[in-house]
């Protein structure tokens, strides 16, 4: 269970939000929507612990995440605006290296399977990612979701640059994650195509 308690956020001299209280139960996706600059990304980065809150706290399983940083990190997968992949490495290498770094299981076949699940054609697996198109790069980043058995997924505009096919694939994977009892927080400007019972919406009013 992920909770924010009286959370408030200050960037520069602007207060983006204050006294934010939300609770996300297992099996639920929190869709964060709102206009540009309203603080969605800032909220998500706070949930990852990269940004520290001005006031208030974030609780994971009832405990402040600042007091259990490493255990907390072991349970989350974060994919931000930036893809977090290395231009010079191939999709395969990127995936297996980043998985091994965080301790997810990932051998060759598993990585291939993940890349294919996210709709990357086989011949693109061995190209350095710098020659891939914008959408293909995003797919490489998102392929991590197929390798992650973690409980909490934090995604910042995952559908950017994706075509409709890929959007569908990612949505399905999110669905599977929720059915396993996972939690997801997704920042997006589009509708998430999931049964409305699974989705909780948070509208940020910049």
């Amino acid at each position, binding site marked *: 269970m992920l909770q924010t308690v009286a959370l408030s956020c*200050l960037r*520069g*001299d602007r*207060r983006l939000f204050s006294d934010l209280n939300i609770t996300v139960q297992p099996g639920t996706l929190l869709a964060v929507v709102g206009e540009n600059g309203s603080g969605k990304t800032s909220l998500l980065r706070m949930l990852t612990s990269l940004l520290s809150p001005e006031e208030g706290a974030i609780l994971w399983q009832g405990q402040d995440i600042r007091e259990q940083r490493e255990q907390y990190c072991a349970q989350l997968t974060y994919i931000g605006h930036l893809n977090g992949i290395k231009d010079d490495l191939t999709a395969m290498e990127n995936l297996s290296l980043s998985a091994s770094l965080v301790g997810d299981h990932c051998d060759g076949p598993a990585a291939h399977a993940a890349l294919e699940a996210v709709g990357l054609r086989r011949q693109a697996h061995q190209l350095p990612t710098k020659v891939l198109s914008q959408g293909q790069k995003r797919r490489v980043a998102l392929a991590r979701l197929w390798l992650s058995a973690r409980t909490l997924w934090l995604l910042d505009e995952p559908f950017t640059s994706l075509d409709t096919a890929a959007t569908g694939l990612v949505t399905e994977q999110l669905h599977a994650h929720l059915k396993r009892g996972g939690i997801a927080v997704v920042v997006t400007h589009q509708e998430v195509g999931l049964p409305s019972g699974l989705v909780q919406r948070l509208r940020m*009013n910049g």
Partner: protein
Amino acid sequence: MNWSKYSAPLAFYPLAGKMIPWFSAVAALAIAVGLYIGLLVAPTDFQQGDSYRIIFVHVPAAWMSMFLYVVMAIWAGVGMGLNARLSFMMAQAIAPTGAMFTFLALLTGAMWGKPTWGAWWVWDARLTSELILLFQYAGVMLLRTSIDDLRRADRASGVLALVGVVNIPIIYFSVKWWNTLHQGASVSMTAAPKMATIMLTAMLLMTFGFWMYSIAVILSRVRCVILERESQPAWGNPSAAPEVAEAR
């Protein structure tokens, strides 16, 4: 803790305002007397002639340059440890004064070096390390101005200031570790004990004056910093904050 009351910048502001005149007055007095003794009363040094009188500004400036760096680092450390904004502001306020004294030590040293050693500059350990200290001040200040986000700037320059402290003992002991010109030139101090007392008095008075001056200047600079930062809406007085949030 009574101290905690003044750890809020806005509470500290008037307190600092009350202290400044006192420190300024003491500084002016000490420097005036120091100058009087140093320039008018103290006799000529039999080895160096009157060029030795530079000591009355050189040594205080050199000492201040090192002390202030340590003090700055301590404030930065406190700021990081306690997450106290006022501490960072103090650190920010100290840097320019410290840099100025470093520069003055270098300049007066060069003025002294020409008549004594025959060169404005030699690459001796003491001199070089003082120059390095100037770079450290410059680095801390430049890093701060290079980062837009205040919070980030505070912390980043704080880390740098703390790391840089390792160099201070090296500057101080450089004379011992590395055989230098600088050390040898100052022997005449011990040669005539009676004269040394007068000189010492003047030097200590000047040093004390510089200390008081630094405190006064730093306090008034920290007041400027507080004003500059607190006058931005959201930092400001806490009661205004929710309003800002609602207004949008």
